[in-house]
């Protein structure tokens, strides 16, 4: 069985983002970029499935600028077998990304497609669901446990009131939630070996997909600042402030 894992190059989650002065977007120059944390969990899950003998080969794909190959190499160092970089300088939107991933999944004949539940830059939470729809297959979103049994996969999902388990026929698309696993760190020898693993370069046109979107970002602004707070010295003062100043308790 083959797995396809999609990874996105995003601003590192620890970096405090700065909005550009002209409100055209977030300033990404000279900022640390990494694999989106949810994608890392998807890579880890694929590697674990391979270690368990469920999967034979892991293909990792990224759609983005040339630099996104760093993130593909990072995934290869974690245990993926080969990479596909679909290079474009245009901002990737979920629908277009889903169409490209469908092209790759069909070309490669993958049975399990793993994505993160959302990218921490655009916070969309759409691509996996769109991909499943385009492929006409089942989806296991917000997965916190994945069990492959024959030609089915059971996915435990994190839902608002707790957990829900669904059974999906393969092929299927799974998007990972934070608690699915704890990703491993790449070891130095594996980082060296990853440099020799194959990495195909493609363009969106190879999959007949035009980039761009009917969505346009008009402006990006910093969120409204909260007024500075005060320090209270005692529980009594806190209760007094909440009752008489903020009036949020009676």
């Amino acid at each position, binding site marked *: 069985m083959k797995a396809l894992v999609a990874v996105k190059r995003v601003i590192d989650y620890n970096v405090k983002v700065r909005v550009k002065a002209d409100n055209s977007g977030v300033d990404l120059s000279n900022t640390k970029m990494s694999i989106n944390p949810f994608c890392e969990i998807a890579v880890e899950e694929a590697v674990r499935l391979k270690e368990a003998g469920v999967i034979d080969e892991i293909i990792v794909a990224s759609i983005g600028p040339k630099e996104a190959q760093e993130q593909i190499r990072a995934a290869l160092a974690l245990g993926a077998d080969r990479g596909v970089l679909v290079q474009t300088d245009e901002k990737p939107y979920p629908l277009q990304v889903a169409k490209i991933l469908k092209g790759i999944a069909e070309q490669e004949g993958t049975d399990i497609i793993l994505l993160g539940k959302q990218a921490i830059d655009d916070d969309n939470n759409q691509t996996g669901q769109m991909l499943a729809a385009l492929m006409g297959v089942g989806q296991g979103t917000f997965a916190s446990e994945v069990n492959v049994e024959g030609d089915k996969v059971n996915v435990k999902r994190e839902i608002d009131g707790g*957990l829900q388990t669904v059974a999906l026929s393969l092929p*299927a698309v799974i998007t990972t939630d934070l608690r699915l696993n704890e990703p491993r760190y790449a070891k130095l020898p594996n980082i060296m070996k990853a440099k020799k693993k194959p990495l195909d370069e493609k363009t969106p046109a190879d999959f007949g997909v035009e980039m761009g979107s009917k*969505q346009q970002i008009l402006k*990006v602004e910093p*969120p409204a600042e909260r007024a500075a*707070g005060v320090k209270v010295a005692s*529980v009594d003062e806190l209760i007094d402030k909440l009752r008489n100043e903020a009036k949020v*308790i009676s």
Partner: protein
Amino acid sequence: MAILVYAEHDNASLKKATLSTVAAAQAMGDDIHVLVAGSGCQAVADEAAKVAGVSKVLLEDDAAYEYQLAENVALLVKDLAADYSHIVAPATTNGKNFMPRVAALLDVSMISEASKVIDAKTFERPIYAGNATATVQTSEDKVLVTVRTTAFDAVAAEGGSASVETLSNVHDAGKSSFVSEELASSDRPELTSAEIVVSGGRALANGENFTKYIEPLADKLSAAVGASRAAVDAGYVPNDMQVGQTGKIVAPQLYIAAGISGAIQHLAGMKDSKVIVAINNDPEAPIASVADYFLEGDLFDVLPELTSKL
């Protein structure tokens, strides 16, 4: 054209998220229809018909929709899409699950977690864990949006008198099936709609301390209990209590954060609360930057005192 709002419910009653979603939809247009899809959910449709501002309720009652499987629900909503200019759903796990699937079936882009409606095609939404706000305009003919329910004041649950139309549009995609469910039972108000939320973090040190220190305060205030990711990962409380970028987004009147440092990802879930109280023994903790009232102290001393004095 009319606007279709997808109702959030548990087959027995309508969730408050639906009322906020109707409010958001009203800012996009005025003819609002609500779709109630589920199994044995006639009561939900009757409830939806009374919601202020709703002109029609579509009821689709079939076993195929009992657990809101995205594969089935998306086909149903796609079929109905022809008659609507907008399809709006709450950004709950359920809405997030099926809406992008509908969008792809219709070959349109969609907008996630809108926090403000500027006009029928222009929306504000938070990006980068709420550290920036994007104004997004779509030129799609069909506008698909999930809305951040805490950003919209719920419409009245009573006062409307919509007609209920029963549909018979059963889709079973055959790709997925429900296996089991483990729902956390709680008598407290629902986290995302509570007026007051009391949250605990890693500093609680174990699950018993949640029961001993956080819950009595929450009970005193009729508040919901939340948690940081650290507390969830450490197993102190179940994951559906997590507040943050990857958990629930809350915006109560009062948010009390006890023993929570205030990582970016946590702030993303609560910084739109009206009043934020932080109880922490570290005055340098990032939570201090968003707190209206900061009480420096040991939560094991402060929480019982606070509980007893309220």
